[in-house]
């Protein structure tokens, strides 16, 4: 499940993209883990996330926050579009001492700064060496920057092109277009705020 690792982007547009997951280790600390996952999501809601979601349930663009929390059945996800929110969230999660593992995805340098500000230190790192193989089959970087925000690959290239066209013709705003894409990413790791900016730039070309 490397679903928040290979998010494509530039230093500039990745500054607004932080995805987190809380999960239990099977067979070690999975007894009574659900209340902890739900608390993780409740804490997130106090810091204005741009998305939340829970495995096997869905994301903020399919369900109300309370429905996601009530239906949380497995690992859960939170996305922020700024480092200030991330830092505030991490501070509260640390204080809550929930005992489940938390993984933070984002620009290494920025994430490390946030961790340090709340007295945390990275434990293990996961690095992307990019896309290998028959790369001529891939769409352009502008499309990949949007589609790779769903690590399970559920947001199609053709759908991104279709909504970008609607923005260009003025039939849909970038924000509304991002909301068309978001529900397809069922885990809730898609960042609609960043997507709206990327789609607007794509449509402006």
């Amino acid at each position, binding site marked *: 499940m490397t679903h928040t*690792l290979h998010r494509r982007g530039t230093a500039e547009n990745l500054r607004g993209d932080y995805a987190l997951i809380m999960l239990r280790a099977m067979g070690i600390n999975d007894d009574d883990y659900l209340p902890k996952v739900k608390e993780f999501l409740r804490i997130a809601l106090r810091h204005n996330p741009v998305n939340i979601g829970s*495995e096997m349930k869905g994301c903020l663009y399919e369900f109300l926050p309370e429905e996601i929390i009530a239906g949380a059945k497995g690992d859960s996800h939170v996305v922020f579009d700024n480092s200030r929110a991330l830092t505030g969230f991490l501070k509260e999660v640390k204080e809550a001492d929930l005992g489940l*593992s938390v993984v933070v995805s984002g620009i290494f340098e920025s994430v490390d700064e946030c961790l340090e500000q709340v007295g945390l230190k990275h434990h293990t790192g996961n690095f992307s060496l990019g896309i*290998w193989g*028959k790369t001529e089959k891939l769409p352009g970087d502008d499309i*990949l920057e949007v589609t790779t925000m769903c690590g*399970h690959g559920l947001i199609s290239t053709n759908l991104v092109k279709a909504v970008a066209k609607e923005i260009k013709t003025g039939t849909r705003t970038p924000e509304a277009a991002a909301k068309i894409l978001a529900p397809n990413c069922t885990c809730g790791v898609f960042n609609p705020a960043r997507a709206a900016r990327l789609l607007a730039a794509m449509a402006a070309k």
Partner: protein
Amino acid sequence: MKITPDECIACEACVPYCPVGAISMKDDIAVIDQDECVDCAVCLKSGSCPVDCIVFEPAPWPRSLRTVFSDPRTEHKATGIAGRGTEEMKTNDITGRFQRGWVGLGCEFGRPGIGTRFSDVDKVAQVLAKHGVAFESKNPVTALMEDVKTGKIREDVLGEKVLSAIIECLYPIEKFQEIITALKEVAKEVDTVFSVEVINRAEPDGSYPLRKLLDEMSMPYYINGKQCAGLGRPLADV
């Protein structure tokens, strides 16, 4: 996934939703190319069809693999978790799966947005096996191997197409260059794309020996990635 032809009103609304482009219009109805379809159910779950004529019927083996590898809301019986991989580094603070001096490698086939046949996964797995990697036992691709010593994937699934499948393995950091070189070579032989990831436990001072190695090898890597924050309990002593 199938579209009931008598009910399709040719609105084309479902066409752009397919992650692998398997839906097209033929003779004024939408059709799904069954060989290309990965049974991810995105078309169905999108709610794009105004007359609800997209249907999913669970397939028998080996086609049943398409759904479990492509729809994250399904659970792999081999791992007990949803999705295509394992907990990998995400719970390393608790499991100690990746210890200092070791590198975790993940090759995610078909990602992003292309899909993969298991025949391509097989090619790479066999090369990695020759270099002595240890395949992750809880990974669903490992569960499809006839023999983890050879990496050979069972013959009856090789033609199946899925949205993505991940090889996960482990090896000593001293073998990093050798394995990456072999991976670069076999990458030329596959008919799809795969995203490559490496995992490393941080040293007590916070440095990553693997990052230093990547820099020394002038090996490009993304400026963004994933980091376990060490909040899990009980902590593994690694």
